[in-house]
């Protein structure tokens, strides 16, 4: 096996769009090395002298993005992201990757897709929606179900509205846990979007990305609706230090998330201890 370097490449930020007080959406130039991530894969972003952390790619090069760019959504939670979320167009991030499992998308073709995101989970899931819309003819019905704590926390609001406008193409439903007056939409946790859901679940694939509590409830619901275990895909999150199967931080049972995930089918996950 060839030596894989942990040295990152400088990548220029082309656009930085704050989504709210703590989330910033970035359009970034791709690294010079071959860079063709699949939905669910991640990159390691760093600032030398500060640190490094994994981020799922939120839009892939060539799938609704400008030539030679990819996109990330970064939330301010720690030292590194405190700096990164202050970045403007023209600043340089240091990137290596993509890492993680590649899933054969041909297996999903001809089926319907249920794409569910809770909170920050929309950042990775957005690349799935983009992929699905980019190859729209390959799929039957597409449902996008998005939940957030509040309307202010709803990410990519303009893009959600654009998807929503494509009524023939894609069915978008949104909900928030709680809202102040003036929110005309639905209020309730994300599982309520599955009530009365009438998709052809036997021939559907579901992709979920959100916090652990969302997985526990949505899994139960989707399985009860009749979705096959191996048609249910979850994107997991773990502390990662290397991205290349070495540092051990991301291990779940005997599995390395950075190698065999972060995208797993429920059938793979169901017997893994402490998975969600």
């Amino acid at each position, binding site marked *: 096996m060839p030596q894989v370097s942990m*040295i990152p490449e400088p990548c220029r930020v082309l656009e930085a769009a704050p989504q709210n007080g703590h989330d910033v959406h970035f359009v970034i130039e791709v690294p010079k090395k071959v860079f063709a991530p699949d939905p669910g894969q991640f990159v390691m972003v760093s600032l030398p002298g500060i640190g490094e952390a994994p981020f799922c790619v939120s839009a892939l090069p060539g799938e609704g993005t400008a030539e030679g760019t990819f996109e990330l959504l970064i939330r301010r*939670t720690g030292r590194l992201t405190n700096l990164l979320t202050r970045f403007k167009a023209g600043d340089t991030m240091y990137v290596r990757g993509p890492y993680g499992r590649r899933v054969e998308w041909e297996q999903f073709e001809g089926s319907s897709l249920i794409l569910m995101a809770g909170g920050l989970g929309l950042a990775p899931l957005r690349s799935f929606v983009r992929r699905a819309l980019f190859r729209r003819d390959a799929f039957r019905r597409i449902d996008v179900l998005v939940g957030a704590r509040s309307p202010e926390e709803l990410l990519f609001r303009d893009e959600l509205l654009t998807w929503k406008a494509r009524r023939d193409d894609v069915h978008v439903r949104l909900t928030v846990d709680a809202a102040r007056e003036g929110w005309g939409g639905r209020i309730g946790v994300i599982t309520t979007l599955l009530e009365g859901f009438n998709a052809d679940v036997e021939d559907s694939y579901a992709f979920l990305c959100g916090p652990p509590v969302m997985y526990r409830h949505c899994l139960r619901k989707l399985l009860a609706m009749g979705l096959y275990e191996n048609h249910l895909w979850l994107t997991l999150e*773990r502390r990662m230090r290397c991205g290349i199967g070495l540092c051990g*931080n991301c291990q779940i049972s*005997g599995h390395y998330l950075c190698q065999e995930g972060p995208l797993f089918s429920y059938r793979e996950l169901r017997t893994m*201890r*402490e998975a969600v």
Partner: protein
Amino acid sequence: MDNEVYRFPRERLDALIERLARDYRVVGPVKQGATWRWADIRPGTAIALDYPTTMLPPRQVFAPQREVLFRFRRGADGHFDFEEPAVERPVALLGVHGCDLTGLRVLHSFHESSCRDRVVPGRLERSFVMGLACWVPCLAESFCRDMGSLEAESPASLYAWDIGSVLLLKVMSARGREILQDVTPLEAATAEELVNWRRRLRVRHEAFPAHLKFAPEKLAVALEAAESDIIWDANADRCLSCGRCNLVCPTCTCFDVCDQATLDGSDGARLRTWTGCQVPGFSRIAGGHDFRPTRTQQLRYRIFRKGKYMPERYGLVGCTGCGRCTSHCPTHISIRDIFRQVGGAP
């Protein structure tokens, strides 16, 4: 090569070290205070071939506690330039017991099959190892015989038995023979020496009582059957989460990554440092969610990794029975006792 056992007068050890030093950084067990450690040795260094065991396992030589991944420096254009460290001299390691030879095998198989990194496997492959047989258990907590590592000789190039009057050296590889021939003419052991050696080998097991009633390959099944949390709770209840067991383990490999830079941030290095699954926060992610928040989960994970996940993934059990984790645990949580609790004592 199987029956190539030669006598090696211990006065020739310095000549062996001198010969190895031409091609290798030579490392061996050296006494420091009340403990023994792996240290650089030269001809004349008091190499302690009668050492019981070292506090840290020899993995510290191949995957050091603290290691530079790369250096960075801000260039004139404002961007960082990166530089990886140069490849260092290969290591010759002298006097490695069976448990630690097994640990090196596990280390190699982990790096070979799990990842795309060649740094540690490269170091192991370029190294020269002289194994050393044990006649008595080195710690009250060790159970190398049960874990099958007492008699392990691979990946040594030369393997030594100290029979008192001389060392008997078994040639394990062409490189081992080459080095040995450079140091001394190959000399067959005398009939008396061979008789003495075989007699001691025959009775060696008496010094190593059996602690487990199952073979190490059965460990994965035994652990899976021990679903009940009683065993884990009772042991984890004493755990202080200090992580010593991780640090002294010959098969632990987890590391953290951190940057160190000058105050102006223009110059520095990205480092990897040892960490472990028993250290608080190991499984915590940004935002504070912890996937293994309790000590019970953390302890069970460590034991499962050694006894189940590693053999399933790399084909080798992750516990060598060296006893270090138990001997260095401040509350004496015993991996051997846990194995006895899940699989039964003899």
